[in-house]
């Protein structure tokens, strides 16, 4: 076999592209592409966190966008109340996401399969309606974040390039963590539970506490994406928690390749670029996007990563 497989080569190329993007943006004077890719990187982070429970843990959460909202509202609400420091906003965003995940997870993990999907969806919709009811924080209309999180000169979030690299560093950090976790004792147990829960119980592992811990880690990571997203758009609204956004994240994970390290990043890049370019061609872009996704899911089992893997072997 070749030392460098096709999927590894494509992944390396993609990562190099992400790292060098600001340089291209600077040289070409194309500012828009940097804004677009900042959003892609943030949603890739969210997809990577979902992949931890969905791809590695076998827990099909259909309410992952809730954390985008919780992280975002933590930043927005604190900013509105005059707390502008990122050193406070970000930890609060992560902690709030962790607590939400703990409560939702403890309740949802009593169920399995379709019921788990439905109950995580139901909780996310509840979060959506709670946010819509927050009159003090804009309710339905959302909340404008007038000042981005202030990291006292350490990194300036209002500088496009610095902000982009902050998001990219967070993405790489999360992927590094996921990599360590899935190969750790804990990660093997979680993947074992995905594979055969009965067997894992019989060799002495209580399923729920491991799955719950994994659920909380994943939610916390996604809360980070939420805090970054609010800074990116200078705005947070209930819409970021809507169920279609949770669906988008699932599609990114499945498209890129569930249970692979870089699949979610690949999925996010491809999905969001397709959406961007197709919507420029026609307002009926979803008509092209739908069949495209279907084809990849039907013929590319294991998503893009699976496809590339087979090309590498073929």
């Amino acid at each position, binding site marked *: 076999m070749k030392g460098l497989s096709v999927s590894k080569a494509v992944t390396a190329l993609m990562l190099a592209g992400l790292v060098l993007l600001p340089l291209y943006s600077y040289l070409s004077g194309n500012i828009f592409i940097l804004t677009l890719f900042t959003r892609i990187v943030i949603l890739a982070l969210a997809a990577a966190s979902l992949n931890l429970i969905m791809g590695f843990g076998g827990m099909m959460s259909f309410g992952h966008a809730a954390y985008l909202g919780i992280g975002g509202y933590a930043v927005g609400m604190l900013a509105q109340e005059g707390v502008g420091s990122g050193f406070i906003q970000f930890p609060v965003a992560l902690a709030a996401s962790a607590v939400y995940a703990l409560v939702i997870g403890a309740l949802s993990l009593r169920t399995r399969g379709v019921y788990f999907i439905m109950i995580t969806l139901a909780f996310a919709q509840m979060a959506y309606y709670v946010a819509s009811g927050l009159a003090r924080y804009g309710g339905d209309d959302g909340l404008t974040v007038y000042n981005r999180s202030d990291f006292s000169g350490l990194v300036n979030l209002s500088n496009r390039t610095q902000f982009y690299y902050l998001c990219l560093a967070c993405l790489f950090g999360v992927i590094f963590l996921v990599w360590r976790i899935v190969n750790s*004792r804990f990660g093997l147990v979680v993947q074992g539970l995905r594979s*055969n829960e009965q067997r894992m119980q019989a060799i002495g592992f209580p399923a729920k506490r491991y799955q719950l811990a994994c659920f909380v880690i994943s939610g916390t990571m996604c809360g980070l994406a939420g805090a970054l997203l609010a800074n990116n758009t200078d705005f947070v609204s209930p819409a970021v928690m809507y169920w279609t956004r949770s669906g988008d994240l699932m599609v990114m994970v499945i498209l890129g390749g569930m249970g692979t390290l870089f699949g979610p990043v690949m999925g996010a890049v491809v999905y969001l670029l397709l959406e961007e370019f197709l919507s420029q061609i026609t307002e009926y872009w979803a008509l092209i996007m739908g069949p495209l996704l279907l084809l990849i899911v039907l013929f590319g089992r294991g998503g893009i990563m699976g496809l590339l893997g087979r090309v590498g072997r073929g």
Partner: protein
Amino acid sequence: MAEPLLRVEKLVRRFGGIVATDHVSLDVAAGELHAIIGPNGAGKTTLISQLTGHLDPHSGSVTLAGRDITYLPAYRRCALGLARSFQITSLLLDFTAADNVALAAQAHAGTSFRFFANARKEKGLRDAAHAALDRVGLAHRADVVASKLSHGERRELELAVALASKPKLLLLDEPMAGLGVTESQRMVKLLQELRKEVSIVLVEHDMPAVFALADRISVLVYGRLIASGDPASIRANEDVKRAYLGDQHVVTHHG
């Protein structure tokens, strides 16, 4: 007699109007290989499920080494030294043979809430896994994914997984199920070796194997225990012949 390793007292389990386990009492001494036989539908698997904690009894008790485990969940019983194999092979099919066994060892070697260090590089776990695989003759297949193993190899892997938890008592639910003649013979030889190290409760249909292996045999018919004793007395027991063997005379043929 010293305290038995496993004591089952007046265990009752009903399914609707059917009494699947009807006041079953039996003792398994340390070091013993105790076989449970009975025709299809006798309630063997129901009984085993109550021993492993996958099913709660309606009354009665199960005691392991003096400790009441009647209502403990399966994973707690495993920690107390009770390991099982499944009638229908139950493995982590997308994990390698070594990973399957190493996870069982990991369950009994400190906390698994370790998030950072690579578990596949823990020498203690890998050594334990290879020792257990070697024990069942699968060492050369350690890095093969379980789904790629033959049926016979999977049965052996089940045993290795059970052994890796260093159990006091092994519950084997039809380990010969679906095995060919040579594979069965290998399994009997293997069990003959293992019984020197660990007490075993064996549920099995393969009569020659049962009579070759067991110290004691309990016969279950319609949920009730109709006889319990050494192979010779079971072979001579008229109730057993009538209720269980019918016209087959398998037992009388043997030996």
